[in-house]
C-alpha cells in the first residue's frame, strides 16, 4: 500500500510537470539542449573539422589551464571566466577572421555558448562546436598539447 502511494505521488508529479511544461508557455523543449538559445548557431564536429581545414579560427572557452593541457590545433584561448582581458589580447585577429568556432568542455559546459553570444555583441559572429572538446577527441581528430596554439 505504501509503495503504491509512493508510485502515485511520483506519477502525479510527472504528469503535473509535463502538463505545466506543455501548457505554461515557459516550458523547455524536452529534446533540445537548454544551453542553446535562439540565434545560437551550433555545428556538428565533422563540419567543425572541415572548417578547421579551411582556416577557421577556433576559440577555446574553457579555463586557461585546460587549454594549456591540450586544445584543438591553432585554437586561441578565450576563457569565458576571463573574457574581457583575453578578448582584448586577440581582438585584431578576431576581427580579421571570417569564420570563428568556439568550443568548451562539452555536454555540461555552457561557456562556448556564452562566449559566442559575447562575441556577437561585439560584432564578431561565431558558431559553437556541438558537444565541444569531448566530441572532438572522441572523433580522434588532432589535438595540440601545451600553451602554444
Amino acid at each position, binding site marked *: 500500500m505504501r509503495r503504491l502511494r509512493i508510485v502515485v*505521488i511520483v506519477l502525479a*508529479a510527472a504528469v503535473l*510537470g509535463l502538463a505545466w511544461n506543455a501548457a505554461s508557455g515557459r516550458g*523547455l523543449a*524536452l*529534446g533540445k539542449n*537548454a*544551453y542553446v538559445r535562439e540565434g545560437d548557431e551550433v555545428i556538428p564536429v565533422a563540419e567543425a573539422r572541415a572548417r578547421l581545414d579551411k582556416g577557421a579560427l577556433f576559440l577555446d572557452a574553457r579555463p586557461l589551464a585546460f587549454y594549456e593541457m591540450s586544445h584543438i590545433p591553432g585554437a586561441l584561448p578565450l576563457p569565458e571566466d576571463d573574457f574581457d582581458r583575453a578578448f582584448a589580447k586577440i581582438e585584431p585577429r578576431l576581427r580579421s577572421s571570417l569564420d570563428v568556432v568556439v568550443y568548451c568542455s562539452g555536454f555540461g559546459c555552457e561557456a562556448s555558448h556564452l562566449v559566442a553570444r559575447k562575441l556577437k555583441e561585439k560584432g564578431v559572429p561565431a558558431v559553437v562546436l556541438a558537444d565541444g572538446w569531448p566530441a572532438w577527441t572522441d572523433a580522434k581528430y588532432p589535438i595540440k598539447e601545451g600553451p602554444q596554439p
Partner: protein
Amino acid sequence: MRWLRHPILYWVVSIGLGAVFVYASLDKIAHPLDFARIVYRYRLAGPSAVLGVLPANLLAVVLPWLEALVGVLLITGFWRREAAAIAGALLVMFLLAVGYVLAQGIDVAHCGCFTVGGEGRSAGWTLIATDLGLLAAAAYVMLGWPSDPVPGRKPISAA
C-alpha cells in the same frame, strides 16, 4: 528521548520540512529552462553522448513538481510518511550528486537548491550538512514516532 515523540514536535518538523520542499520548488517551476541548465552542470543525468539531453530535461521538468507535491503532503499530513520517504530519497539523491561533483572537482557554482537565478549557493560541504539535517528530519517524519504509545498522550494518526 521522550520529547522526540511529542506530537507537536512531529508536526512542526513535518510542516517545516514540507515548507522547505515547497519553497525549493517554486523558482524551479517558474524557470524550468534555467533549472535544466543547472541540472546539466552536475553531469549526472546528461547531457552526454550516450544519454543526450532528454533525461536531464525530464528531470528538470518533473523534479520541482515532485518537491512541491511532497512539500504539500508533508504540510497537510496526507500520506505524510510516504511523502517523507520520497523526501528522504530525494535528499539522498542530492547528497550523492553534490558528493559526485565535489569528488570530480566540477565547479557547479550554483547548486539550484532553492533558486535558479542570481548567485545561488555552491555545491559544497555546507550544502551537504544542510541536506543531512533535512534527511534526518525526513527520517524522523517517516518513522512516525508519535504513533508509538506515549503515556498520557494520544498518538496522532499516520494518515
